[in-house]
């Protein structure tokens, strides 16, 4: 596949709708690429990107469903045993209901309270897992054609590489770390080596401007004052 194969219509950014809304772009005869309605395709891609930047709740859902299955199996077994007028492990399910209805009489305080608190905490945990946002350490990169999601570590190492190449430090003398809105680069020069901090900051800023991450990152370049001795 050579880049020369692109048709002029392909260079149009996917996000620009040409006023006509969800209609095909140019006529099907002139354009070999029958574009999906741009607005719709965009929304779909945005949805996929959002799925990639937030963590799935699948493990919690599986735990909750297994709990419900165990609960259903227990109630079902108890119902069958009661309907057959039998006892299970020497206990009549109807006697258990009796004890529950008579509560708190005849029950041990500590055991019931501990059990109730455990159930409530489990419920709170499920509730929070369902309600709170769960972001992954990833950023979105704007692109005309693709949905792009990049790990924060990749951004950090790219910024570190930019700072290092501007200062001519050793490959492992720049360390980057990325938060949600900040990007820190720490330079670790050998003792007595002068570092061009301004050049490094400019290089990191250039790199970030090129990347154009969402949410935007503010760079900060620092030089570790405690020097070190290189072999």
């Amino acid at each position, binding site marked *: *596949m050579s880049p020369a*194969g692109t048709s002029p219509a*392909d260079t149009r950014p*996917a996000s620009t709708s040409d006023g006509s809304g969800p209609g095909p772009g140019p006529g099907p005869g002139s354009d*070999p*690429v029958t574009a*999906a309605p741009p607005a719709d395709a965009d929304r779909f*891609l945005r949805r996929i*990107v959002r*799925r990639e930047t937030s963590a799935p709740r*699948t493990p919690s*859902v*599986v735990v*909750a*469903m*297994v*709990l*419900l299955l165990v*609960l*259903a*199996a227990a*109630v*079902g077994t108890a*119902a069958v045993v009661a309907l057959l007028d039998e006892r299970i492990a020497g206990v*009549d399910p109807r*006697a258990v209901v009796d004890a*529950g*209805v008579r509560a*708190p009489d005849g*029950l041990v*305080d500590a055991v*019931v*309270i501990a059990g*109730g*608190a*455990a*159930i*409530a905490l489990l*419920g*709170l945990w*499920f*509730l929070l*897992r*369902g309600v709170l946002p769960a972001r992954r350490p990833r950023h979105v*990169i704007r*692109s*005309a054609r*693709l*949905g*792009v*999601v*990049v*790990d924060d570590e*990749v951004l950090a*190492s*790219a910024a570190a*590489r*930019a700072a290092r190449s501007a200062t001519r430090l050793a490959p492992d003398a720049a360390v980057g770390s990325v938060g949600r809105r900040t990007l820190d680069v720490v330079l670790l020069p050998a003792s007595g080596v002068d570092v061009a901090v301004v050049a490094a900051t400019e290089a990191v800023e250039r*790199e970030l401007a*090129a990347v154009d991450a969402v949410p935007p990152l503010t760079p900060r370049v620092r030089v570790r004052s405690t020097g070190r001795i290189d072999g």
Partner: protein
Amino acid sequence: MNGTNRTLGRVVLVLVGLVFLALGAAVVLVQTLPAAAEVWHTAADRTLGGLRTGAADTSAWWWALGGAVVLGILALLVLSSIGGGRTGTVLEDDGPDGGLPGQVRIEAAAVEHALSAAITPLPQVASLAVDVRRVRRRTAVRIVVRTRRGAPPREVVDRVEDVVRDLDALLGQRLPVLLRIVRGGSSRPDRVR
């Protein structure tokens, strides 16, 4: 990127969480507050009377059995909605009206191979995986690129964009494409400096 319905998962989590929270709090309150125990006694006599020893008939236990079966089936349905979504076909087309009869079907493997072959030679790419999945009743391509250490993400994006535009021209259709640039891979720096 898979077929999991995440909205369903979150709704189920919130519902189960609320029920468990209310249940646990109620148990603790009934055991500690006499007033709450009073309320519980009147409510339990009315609703759980049929389950007690010496109840007139067994219909209440039949209801309990039915409820348990329904609950179990619902839980299994939610579990079965998790995962899945791999697909073998990228697109199917019977061509323009009045053209030759027949269908064109493009397999996922063809697109996966084409993209792999075009992207692997890029100097920033350490390793690569391409798969085609069905998400929300649409076919989407996911490209996972492991870059070399310090590779500029924008260059990777631009080059993959070029490759995907070529694919668009080849297929005659714009597939939704997700590009994931992930950490790790080779610790060796970029082949080109």
